[in-house]
C-alpha cells in the first residue's frame, strides 16, 4: 500500500482526480433510479445525450401515443390480427 504523500499515492490521487466525474455520475444515476425508477414502458433507447427536461417531454409525447394505441387495442384487436392483415385487406379490394 502506498504511503500517503509517496509518488505512487500521488499518481493514484491524480488518476482519481481525472476520473472523478465518472463515479460521481454513476452514483447520481443509481441514487436517482432508486428514488424515482424509470417505468419500464417509458424506458428509452435514445442514442444521444439530451437534457432531463427534453427527456420528460419525450416521455410525455411517447406516453400519449402509446396510450392511443393501447386504448384502440383494447377495443379492437383480436388475438389473430397481424400486421400483414392490412395489405391483405387492401389487396382484396383490387
Amino acid at each position: 500500500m502506498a504511503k500517503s504523500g509517496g509518488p505512487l499515492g500521488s499518481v493514484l490521487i491524480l488518476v482519481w482526480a481525472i476520473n472523478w466525474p465518472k463515479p460521481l455520475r454513476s452514483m447520481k444515476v443509481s441514487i436517482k433510479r432508486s428514488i424515482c425508477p424509470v417505468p419500464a414502458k417509458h424506458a428509452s433507447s435514445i442514442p444521444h445525450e439530451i437534457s432531463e427536461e427534453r427527456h420528460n417531454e419525450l416521455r410525455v409525447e411517447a406516453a400519449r401515443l402509446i396510450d392511443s394505441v393501447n386504448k384502440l387495442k383494447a377495443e379492437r384487436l383480436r388475438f389473430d390480427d397481424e400486421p400483414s392483415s392490412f395489405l391483405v385487406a387492401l389487396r382484396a379490394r383490387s
Partner: protein
Amino acid sequence: MTERSLALEQWSILTLSRAIRERRITCQTVTAAAIERAKRDTTNSFIALNAEQAIRNAVRLDKELANGRCRGSLHGVPLAHKDMFYRQGDISTGGSQIRKEWVAQSTATVIARLDEAGAVDLGRLNMSEFAAGPTGHNRTFGNALNVHNNLHVAGGSSSGSAVAVAGKIVYGTLGSDTGGSIRIPAAFNGLFGLKPTYGTVSRSGAMARSWSLDHIGPLARSAVDCALIYAHIAGEDPRDSTTFRAPIPQLSDDWPTRLDGIRIGLTADMESEGISEEVARSVKEAAAVLRSLGAEILAIPSHDFSTAFNIAETIVKCEAAAMHGPWMAERPLDYAPHVRSRIEAGFFIPATAYIDALRLRQGLLEDFLVTSLRGVDFYLGPTTGKVAPLISESDLDDSGPAVIALVSKLTRLTRPFNLLGLPALSVPCAVRSNGLPVGFQLVGRPFDDMRLISVANAYEAARLQAPAAP
C-alpha cells in the same frame, strides 16, 4: 388552350408530347429551354442541375425519333425529382447534411421506369431534410420558396418538386408522401398531387422516411399530366415486396366531362376548428362545380381521424428512430433540431406498441370504408386547413412540443390516409389571401387512383371554362 396560344413552358405534357412525337420541336430544344429556366430560378427549387447529362439524353432521344422509335407520352419531356430517388453513381442527399456526398449504388425503380419512358431528368430537387417536415424548411440547402408568394412556405417535404413545376421550370415531378408530403406542397403551390394507393408504386431505391407509410407519386400542373406520370411508374416490382400484381392503370383518351352517377361525400369536418373560413368556402365552391357536372354531393358526418393520426405517428416515429439511430448516436448535431426532435420520441416507444399500431391498420381501413365511404364513391374535404403559412411564423429551428403542434396542424387532414393506404389527390381549387392557392382533397377506394384523376380532370375543365372571379 393549345401550343399556339401559350409559351413553351406553359404547355402541358400532353401538348408537348404530341409536338415532340410529330417532330415539330426537338427534345434538345425543349430540354435546353428548361435548363435556362432552371438557371434563372429564384425559388431555390434545385439542389443539383445536371444540364450536360440532360442535353446528352435529349440528343439521344431525338436520334431515336429520327430512327422511328418513340417511347411514348414522356419521350423527351423534361422532368426533375425530389433528391431522394437514387440513381446509380449519382449523389442523393435526401435533403440532408449527413448524405450530402453520398453516392447511390442502385437506381430507384420509378426513375428507371421514367428513363425507359424517355423522360429527360434535369436534376435533383430541394426537399425537407430526410423528408421530415410539412413546411419545406431546409437548413442545409436553404428553403424552396412558394411560387405564389415567397414570404410563405412552399410546403413539404416535396418542396422543390412543387416549386419547380408550379414555377414552370419542368413539366412534372416525383415526390414522396408519408404524411402529406406530396399533397401539402401541391395545395400550397396550386398543383395536382397524387398519393397513390399503397403498394401500386414501388418504393425501391427511394430513401425511406417510414417504410410502412411512404408513398411515391406525381405532382403536375394538370390532372392528365398527373395521370401520364402515374401510369408510367405504377406496377409490381420484385424489389419492393409491398407492391403486387394489379391491373396497371391505363390512361383513357376519352375521359368523361360529365360526372353523372358519381356520388361524392362532402365532409362536415369543414366547420371544425383549424379550418379557415376561406378554405372551407373554397372547398364548398368546388363541390358546387362538381355538382354542376352531374355528381351527387352528399353531406357525410365528420370522421374522427385523431386516432388514425396517432397510430400513424407511432409508426413513423418508431421506423424513423430505427433507421436514424446510428447517425443520431454519431452525429446528432448534423440534424436540424426540428428534424431530430421529431425522430426522438420513437426511442421511447416499446416494440409492442409499434407492432400493435401496425396491427390496427386493417380495422381502421375497414372502419373508414364502411362509414365515411359508405354509399359514396369519393370523400371530399380540404387538403390543409389553411393556406401556406408565413416562413417567419413556421421557422422552428428548435425542438420540442412547438414542432409537434405545427406538424400536427399541417398534416391533420392528410396523414390519416397514409395509414389507410387509400388513394388521395390534392386538386387546386381557388386562389385566396395574399395570392395563395387552396387545394381540396379527393379520396377514393383502394385502386381508384385513375378514377380520382378523371374526376379531377372533369373539374379542372369546368373550372377553366368558368369566368374568372372579379
